[in-house]
């Protein structure tokens, strides 16, 4: 709760300083890049309490403008959901990351998703993980926002999302600072 309050205060200082903080933290930080083209928003704005209330962890979300999800880090696929709507990765620095494409999309049971990696695969930052048919998913009435959640948020002193930015795959979107 304390951690959350601090994050809220930092957010009010304005996004232009986030980049500077990210640079300061470079030494012992894990910087994750955007898995998709789009616009980043605060995860509390995601209209699903599972994500907005941080039940799965802290993070960020992307309103996608593309149809492909790429790896946000060098790491390992811990779980490629067989429905293709989500993927769990563990970064080489130990971050446990859930990328969830759309809300309630588990109920599509794999329709409109195509996976390019399997559970256990090693991946490099920027490698293609999943393609999704954004228009078809939206046409079925689903929100296509992509929450990116740090499932082991408790392992970090500070988790700093770069919200309110137009991003391309590979642009930094969140900085994880480990305890010293």
């Amino acid at each position, binding site marked *: 709760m304390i951690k959350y309050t601090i994050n809220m205060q930092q957010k009010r200082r304005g996004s232009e300083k986030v980049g500077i903080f990210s640079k300061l933290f470079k030494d012992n930080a894990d910087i994750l890049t955007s898995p998709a083209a789009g616009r980043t928003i605060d995860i509390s704005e995601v209209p699903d309490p599972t994500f907005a209330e941080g039940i*799965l962890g802290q993070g960020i979300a992307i309103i996608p403008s593309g149809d492909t999800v790429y790896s946000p880090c060098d790491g390992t696929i811990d779980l490629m959901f067989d429905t293709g709507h989500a993927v769990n990765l563990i970064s080489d620095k130990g971050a446990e990351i859930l990328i969830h494409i759309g809300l309630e999309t588990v109920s599509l049971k794999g329709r409109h998703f195509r996976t390019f990696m399997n559970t256990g695969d090693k991946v490099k930052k920027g490698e293609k993980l999943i393609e999704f048919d954004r228009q078809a998913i939206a046409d079925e009435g689903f929100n296509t926002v992509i929450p990116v959640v740090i499932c082991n948020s408790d392992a970090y002193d500070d988790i700093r999302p770069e919200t309110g930015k137009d991003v391309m795959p590979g642009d930094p979107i969140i900085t994880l600072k480990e305890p010293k």
Partner: protein
Amino acid sequence: MKTFDYTVKDELGIHARPAGLLVKQIAGVRSNVTIAVKAKGTSADAKRLMAVMKMAVKQGDVVTVTIDGEDEDTIAPQIEQFFKDNF
């Protein structure tokens, strides 16, 4: 040590959201809580979100839940009720 078996009724199984709810439910529990699907040979520390998701528990899977620790007597019935209410 307390243990119970539960057969998952939810047609979507224990995916991201239910896994998150489970981990949140038992986050403050002192006991060690593990879940296992013996038929698949999988198990996980129920306090570890990624580990629970990785089990990919499906409808019809029999989940064996084990609660082991000082608060097991009070916690076990609560966890069993949580499974019945949510999974």
